[in-house]
């Protein structure tokens, strides 16, 4: 029995070399879900606004940002990880996976820090007080929707998952894998940054995160030729945010 279970687990690991990132993402989603349920129970509230702006300290905000990246973006790298793992010797697979994630996360970290700094600067500028009269979250999602079908984005989306095979071993091979992670990160930022910015403006609602992750996952991994899925999702969220803005009780 134990042998059978071991074999099943082993087969699963081989067939799904990206299991680690999926587990990591699943854990973060479970954490979000528990937060959602906890908030709902405590406040009889339909939504759990995980408002990053309300978090204390820049480090905490950065941590929350990276958690969101791992939850939403890491599952999108399944194809890349599969190709990477299949192109390196087995004894180097775990190291390569770690180096890939370091490279990939670094790009999102730099982008996240820049975004948080920009947000802080905008919030402290006096003229931005006037922006509160505008439905910023709806506008953000609307702009994200418009960008979703752009030709440059479709090209990048198609590039997701494809890699240049790294060298076989040694420091240069490590560097190759790190570069693959960095390049994948840059591609991902270019492809998905507009959505992440829109969510940042909207305040990181967990339900909205879930909806957008599903749309991104569908678009990136299930059927790339199917356009408009992400665009339409963004438009629906823009409409929802518009309703919430003008009818504040709608979302409660």
């Amino acid at each position, binding site marked *: 029995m134990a042998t059978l279970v071991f074999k099943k687990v082993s087969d699963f690991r081989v067939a799904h070399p990206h299991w680690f990132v999926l587990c990591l993402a699943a854990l973060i989603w479970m954490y979000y879900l528990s937060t959602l349920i906890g908030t709902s129970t405590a406040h009889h509230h339909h939504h759990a606004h995980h408002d990053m702006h309300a978090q204390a300290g820049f480090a905490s905000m950065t941590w929350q940002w990276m958690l969101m990246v791992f939850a939403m973006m890491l599952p999108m790298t399944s194809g890349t990880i599969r190709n990477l793992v299949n192109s390196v010797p087995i004894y180097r697979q775990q190291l390569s996976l770690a180096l890939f994630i370091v490279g990939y996360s670094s790009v999102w970290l730099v982008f996240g820090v820049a975004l948080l700094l920009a947000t802080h600067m905008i919030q402290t500028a006096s003229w931005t007080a006037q922006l509160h009269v505008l439905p910023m979250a709806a506008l953000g999602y609307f702009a994200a929707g418009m960008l979703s079908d752009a030709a440059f984005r479709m090209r990048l989306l198609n590039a997701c998952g494809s890699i240049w095979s790294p060298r076989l071993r040694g420091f240069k091979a490590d560097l190759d894998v790190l570069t693959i992670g960095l390049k994948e990160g840059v591609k991902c930022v270019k492809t998905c940054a507009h959505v992440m910015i829109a969510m940042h403006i909207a305040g990181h609602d967990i339900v909205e995160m879930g909806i957008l992750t599903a749309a991104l996952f569908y678009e990136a991994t299930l*059927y790339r030729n199917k356009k408009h899925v992400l665009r339409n999702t963004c438009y629906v969220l823009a409409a929802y945010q518009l309703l919430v803005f003008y009818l504040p009780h709608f979302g409660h």
Partner: protein
Amino acid sequence: MRIRKNVNEIKDGTLLWYSKAVEEMKKRDISDPTSWWYQAAIHGIGFKTYTENPLGHNNMHEWSEDSIWKKAKGIPQNTIQAEALADEMKDKHFWQQCQHGSWYFLPWHRMYLYFFERIVSKTIQDLGGPDDWTLPYWNYFNAFNPKLTPKLKEKALFIPQEFGFFCNDTHQTQPNPDFPGLWIEERQSYKLNPRTPDHPGDLWDTSSMQSTGFVGEGPDGFGGEITDFSHNGRYFGALENNPHNTVHDEIGGTMGDPNTAALDPIFWLHHANIDRLWQSWIENGNTDTTDKKWLNQVFYFHNEHGEKVSLSPSDVLNTQQLDYTYSENYSGLNQTEPVIHKSYLRGTFVLDTIAASIKPLSLNSTPISTSLDFISSEKTKVVLTHIGTESSPAPTAVYVSLENITGAGNIAPVHIFIKLPNSKERFFVGSLGLFGLTQASSPSTHSAGQGLNVQLNATEIVHQLRAHPQWKLEDIHIEVEPSRALGAANATIGRISIKAEV
């Protein structure tokens, strides 16, 4: 039920009516789904110029996608406008939809041929022809048919003369005057290369028919690897690489480029043969995948009335579902059990990368070889077992993997050899067709631009070579040689690696 027949065995007016139908369909505007141009654009359309994508060789012909497609009726002569039209039709899921490097390769092309045949048949009926016209197939596998005479074997290698000739005196091609619709100027070769003593098993052969699983991560998968919608895939399936790709590249010209291939009337006979081989493989007791993702993927076409229709692989698993079959003909299937017979279940067949080249390798018209960097034996579980021993009835599978092949132009099939140290001898591993090289090398909405990948099964040759006195795995070289001079085309192999079964 309609019966598709071998083109070398038909004696009726099938080709004459095909020629007339092609001419008639060419008169129709490219916006008409039943036009020759629209049908070809479903497979691929592009407007690269000669310098970007030479379709000839040795600069004999300044053919390009642009020069060929500008002949289409109704296509804007301004390239920017033509590209905009192509993009619009692609976004509607009608043009540039061919599936390559993918497990959708076989079902998509079956659907494509089915609707094409109906359109041609209706055109023939409208012209006053018979109502039972069927698409013939070109069985080049008959070159290996042990039951045929040498003359008939040789005949199987040639494009039938109704499609035109290559004049040795003028070095130009010319149409058969009785069948003008079947000729296309931009056809580079009229004959497939037969095996030679120097290249045993050369160019294309029947090895793909011995594959036992539909899906695989490499050439052991008969039908191709698991992908999403895939205009340019990562790895070719066995049948797709050989003979599909190699025959495309052998004929060359329009046939050598996915964006122009379907403009050549011989394209459809070549693909009818590929479709027949799939059917034969199934009838030999093999099975397709039952994955729901594969079965339910929807593709869009137009029928003979120009109406939008859709089909899924589950609708085309057997030709009888589409009311046609093939005449009995040689399919290259071994009657005996193959030497390597593995239950190729995804996830139970593990390959380890044990060696790789250090630098990219640029192809020349002459042979070029590279050494390989091996990992130490302590760091891998790969053990090369012997063929046929009681404890290990199957040998350890070994593959030569050619990754990130980028370049431009139409390159004839490339041969891969293993060379032993201090020896001029080389041992043939296999051939690869770089069909779609240009498209796979530039980023687009259909391609990541990171090139083609091919895996060749080197199991038998490696295990034979292990008995060679000069055999030392760590010292082998891989040699690469195109079967024709490159001319203006170019290609670079990003990495060559050796993968072996754990």
